[in-house]
């Protein structure tokens, strides 16, 4: 496997070290995905089951237990709030929608949450947890950094052999955001156009499964 570390100058890159670094970063993404699944299958499911048991308790307290019923309703609302916080944490570790449905649906959700005018062009193809995780968080940071008045941005995700090609255009360049996520996996980033301001295209290529 050819290492592509654009920040290194010259040809003295120690190949085994670069490869080890890349593998370590891939493991890092797999662990993040695993942690997210553990949250879902463990804590979250237990809390959801608890809301059902509280509902049963509420039912048994009827008909003269109005005070108890009110309390139980409040506890259930509180558990919903706890689960919302867990969802928030899970999304920051590894978004469940990215895990389950891939970059297209996950990035469209990001655009909707930011209420930003973004077109996402992506097939249903999958690229493995590392490349998808890196592409997702890079794009999210890039879009979040754009000014509020940004117009018609476009994100394209495509496979080029064993590489995930991510292109973000119509933006004020966010080279650094893409670089930070792509580089540890042996990826490269290039800025295609830089003018006029706010109309840049940045392309990242990340080795994938």
């Amino acid at each position: 496997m050819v290492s592509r570390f654009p920040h290194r100058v010259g040809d003295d890159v120690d190949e085994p070290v670069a490869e080890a670094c890349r593998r370590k970063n891939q493991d890092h993404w797999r662990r993040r995905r695993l942690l997210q699944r553990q949250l879902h299958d463990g804590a979250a499911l237990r809390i959801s089951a608890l809301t059902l048991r509280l509902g049963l308790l509420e039912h048994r307290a009827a008909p003269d237990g109005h005070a108890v019923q009110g309390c139980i309703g409040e506890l259930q609302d509180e558990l919903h709030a706890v689960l919302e916080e867990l969802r928030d944490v899970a999304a920051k570790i590894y978004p469940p929608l990215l895990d389950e449905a891939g970059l297209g649906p996950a990035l469209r959700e990001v655009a909707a949450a930011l209420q930003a005018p973004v077109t996402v062009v992506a097939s249903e193809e999958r690229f493995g947890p590392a490349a998808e995780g890196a592409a997702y968080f890079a794009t999210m940071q890039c879009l979040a950094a754009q000014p509020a008045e940004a117009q018609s941005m476009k994100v394209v995700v495509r496979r080029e052999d064993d590489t995930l090609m991510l292109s973000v255009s119509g933006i004020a360049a966010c080279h650094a955001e893409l670089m930070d996520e792509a580089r540890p996996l042996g990826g490269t980033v290039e800025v295609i156009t830089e003018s006029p301001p706010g109309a840049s295209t940045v392309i990242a290529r990340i080795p994938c499964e």
Partner: protein
Amino acid sequence: MRVALAEDGALFREGLLMLLRAAGHQVVCSAADGDELVALLTTEPADVAILDIRMPPEPDGGLITAERLRAAHPDLGLLFLSHYAESHYLMRILEIGTESIGYRLKEKVGSVEVLTDTLNRIGNGEIVIEPVLAKRLVERTRGDKKDVVAALSDREQEVLRLMAEGRSNNGIAGQLYITPKAVEKHIANIFVKLGLHIDTAAHHRRVLAVLTYLRSQRDQG
């Protein structure tokens, strides 16, 4: 009501079983995955099947199971339960069917009243959409649509949110303590303001029109 249930989390499945029985429903079968449920339902009639979206067969067995069930038993209502309320899954669910179908968060069906109301609405042919998700769809409109939605009166925005939950005119009237006639008037005003021209009497078409309106811009960018 005769209910069939498929959920791979034993703790949640047992809890739901107990709550369904307490609510007076008959649980005709309960399974840990979709394939098992499909097999059980070939001999056991049911009114509504409750399906976990994320269960075997992986990755989203609930959706695959639902497609098979809808083909085999067109009158069987379908209620999807999930840990996540995602518009991506809502659209996939509405591709499976637009009548007698529902999508709710797992922790939001934890009372006899809510569970029974959800099942009854699905049994009556309605679309039931998690209020948390409906609210998010209404709040996250963009561009021109944001301005249009913002220009609705407070009461009209409430009605729009309840329409996005799939509620019928009577359901909306009951929630807002107003008459069904008043609801009809609000809905007519909303449709004029949104520029939607559709037969508002056909319930599922109306819900779809509202959801499509709220969603459309995110796919066009």
